[in-house]
C-alpha cells in the first residue's frame, strides 16, 4: 500500500512537485504518466527516500518515508531505466548478493533467492561471470534480479523501458506481470500512453508537478469519451502555457 500526501519539492528555482496526492492499494499496479520533466522521477526518488520533500509525506506499507526511511527502503525495490548501474568487476551473482546483504537477508535466503531468480530470468549461463562484458539484455536481467532480490512487497519502476528494443522491453513487461501475480504493490512510470494502457489498471497523470487526473483507465476513457492518448494531449494542452 502506498499513500502519497501533498508532496511538494523544489530544486532551487524549479518547482518540481506542487502537491502530489494519490493512493495505491496493496496488490495494485498504478501507472505514473507524464511528459519529460513532469516530476515522475522526483516523485519516485522521494518515495525511495533518496530525496526529502519540502512538504507532504508518503506512507509505504505503514512506514512513513520521513520517520522510518530505513524500513521504507527495506520494503521496496526500484528499477531504473537507462544504464543498469551494475558493478562491472563483480559477477552477476555478487552484484545481486550485495543488495541482498544490504537489505539484511541471510546468506541462505540470498542463495535460494538467487537460484530462483536465475531460473525464472534464465541467467544460468552467466550468473557467475563478471558483468563487464555482458550484453545490454543480460545486464538488464541482472539489474531486475538485483532490484527484487529481497522480495519487497512494493516495486517502483522509473521508465524502465526507455531506450530498450521491443524484446528487451518485453522482459520488463513480463517481470511486471510477475510482480502483479505475486500481489506486489507497483508504481510504473512512463511517458508512453500505450505502454501504461497495456500494463496498468489505474493511472495518475502528472504535468509540471501537478496531478491532472487520477482514475482507472476504463472510467477515464468513458468519462471523456476518447482514447488515452488524445485525452492526455488534451489535458496537457489545456494546462499548457
Amino acid at each position, binding site marked *: 500500500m502506498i499513500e502519497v500526501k501533498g508532496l511538494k519539492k523544489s530544486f532551487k528555482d524549479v518547482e518540481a512537485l506542487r502537491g502530489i496526492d494519490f493512493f495505491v492499494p496493496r496488490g495494485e499496479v498504478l501507472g505514473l504518466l507524464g511528459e519529460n520533466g513532469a516530476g515522475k522521477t522526483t516523485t519516485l526518488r522521494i518515495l525511495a527516500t533518496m530525496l526529502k520533500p519540502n512538504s507532504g509525506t508518503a506512507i509505504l506499507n505503514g512506514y512513513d518515508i520521513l520517520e522510518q526511511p530505513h524500513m521504507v527502503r527495506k520494503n521496496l525495490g526500484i528499477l531504473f531505466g537507462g544504464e543498469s548501474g551494475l558493478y562491472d568487476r563483480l559477477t552477476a551473482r555478487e552484484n545481486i548478493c550485495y543488495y541482498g546483504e544490504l537489505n539484511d537477508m541471510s546468506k541462505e535466503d540470498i542463495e535460494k533467492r538467487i537460484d530462483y531468480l536465475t531460473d525464472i530470468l534464465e541467467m544460468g549461463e552467466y550468473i557467475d561471470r563478471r558483468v563487464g562484458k555482458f550484453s545490454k539484455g543480460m545486464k538488464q536481467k541482472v539489474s531486475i534480479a*538485483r532490484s527484487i532480490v529481497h522480495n519487497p512487497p512494493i516495486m517502483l519502476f522509473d521508465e524502465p523501458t526507455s531506450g530498450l528494443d521491443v524484446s528487451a522491453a518485453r522482459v520488463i513487461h513480463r517481470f511486471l506481470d510477475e510482480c502483479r501475480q505475486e500481489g506486489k504493490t507497483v508504481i510504473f512510470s512512463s511517458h508512453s500512453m500505450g505502454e501504461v494502457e497495456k500494463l496498468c489498471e489505474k493511472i495518475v497523470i502528472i504535468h509540471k508537478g501537478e496531478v491532472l487526473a487520477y482514475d482507472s483507465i476504463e472510467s477515464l476513457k468513458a468519462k471523456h469519451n476518447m482514447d488515452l492518448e488524445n485525452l492526455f494531449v488534451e489535458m496537457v494542452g489545456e494546462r499548457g502555457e
Partner: protein
Amino acid sequence: MNKRHVWIVFKKEVKDIFRDRRTWIASVLIPMLVFPLLFFFMNMGMKNMEKNMEKDIPIYIETPNQEMDIIHYLNNSQGIQVVEEEKPYESLQEGKLKLILVIDEDFQEKIEKEQPASLKIIFDEVSNESSMAASMIENKINAYSEKIRFQRLEKLGINPEILQPMIITREAYVPEGEEAKGDQGALFMITFLLPFLLMLYPVVGGMPAAIDLGSGEKERMSLEPLLSTGAGRLSILTGKYLAILLASIIGTITSLMGVVAASKIAPDAIPLGVRISPLSIFILVATSLGIAMILSGLMLSISVFARSYKEAGTYLSPVTIVLMVPVYLTMFMDIRTLSTSLFFIPLLNSVLVMKEALVGIINPLHIILTFSISIILVVLSLFFTRFMFNKESVIFRS
C-alpha cells in the same frame, strides 16, 4: 550507523577495487618499484662513472714549455694520463679529454723566484666526469704546492709545524646512554625521504579507489540503486572510507618496502643505517596513519562531489602537489628550534613530528598538538564527506 552494513560495503569495495588493475598498479606496483628502479639506474650510472674515473684520466697540458717540474710530476702521478691532442678543446667537448691544464711559460721561473705561479684548469661544465677530474687534479696540484712550501720552509730553516698552529677535529655530541644517530648523509636522506613517502603514497595508493568509490558510482549510475537499499548513508560511506584507507595504507607500506629494497640495491645511495627507537617507530606509524586517514577522507569527499571520473581526476591530481609543500618547507627548518606555532598547521605538523621522531626528539607538547589537530581534521573530513553525501544537490548533480 550499522556495523554489519559497513562491513558488507567494505568487503564489496575491497573486492571490487582489487579486481581493478589500476589499484594494483597504483597501490602496489608503482610504490614497490619506483625506488628500486630509480636507484638501480642511479647506481648503474654511478658505477659506470666510477669505472671511468678509475681509468687514467686523459688530460692535456697547454704550455709553450714542456720542460717543467710540474709536468714531470703530473706525468708520474697515478690516475692521470697526459695526452697529445691536435684539437684539445674539441676533444674536451667530445669527452675524450677530461680537462685542459694551462700553464704559463714563466711558471717554472716564478716558482724558482719564489713568486706565486698560477695555472688554470679548464673543464667542461656540463660533464660530471670533467668536474670530478678537475677536483682531482686540483688536489694533486695542491699536494705538489704543499711539497714546494715544505721545501721553502726547510730552506729557511723553519719547522713546517710552526705554520700549523691548530688542529681541529669535529665530533657529533652523543649524550650519555645514547647511541650516535649514524651516518650524517643517511640521517638527512631518511628525514627527507620518509615524510615524503608517507605524504605522497597514501594519495598515490588511495586515489584510484577514491575516484571509483565516489564519482564512479555516479558515473555508472549505481549510486541511486545503492542508496535505495536498506543500508543507511553513513554506513555506506564508512565502508567506502575504510576501503580507501586500506588502499592508502597498502600504498604506503609497499612504498616503504620499495625503499628497503632500493637500499639493498644501492646501499651507498640510500643508507638506512639510522637507529630508530621503538617509541619513535610507534610515533612514526601513528603519524602516518593519521595522514592516511585525513587524506582518505579528503579524497572521498572530493570524489563524492565530482560528477564523473574525469572531474574527480581533475580535482584530485593537484592534491599531490599541494601535499609536497610541507615536505619541502620543512627541509629548511632547524629541528632543534622549531616554533610551537608550527605544530598548529595540519600536515606540516605531522611532517615535523616525524622528523623529530627520526632523530629521537620526543616532545610531548608537539606530539599532543599534532595528534589533536590530526584527529580534528579526520573527524572534519568525515563530517564533510557525510555532509556531501547527504546533500541532494551533490548526489544528484547533473
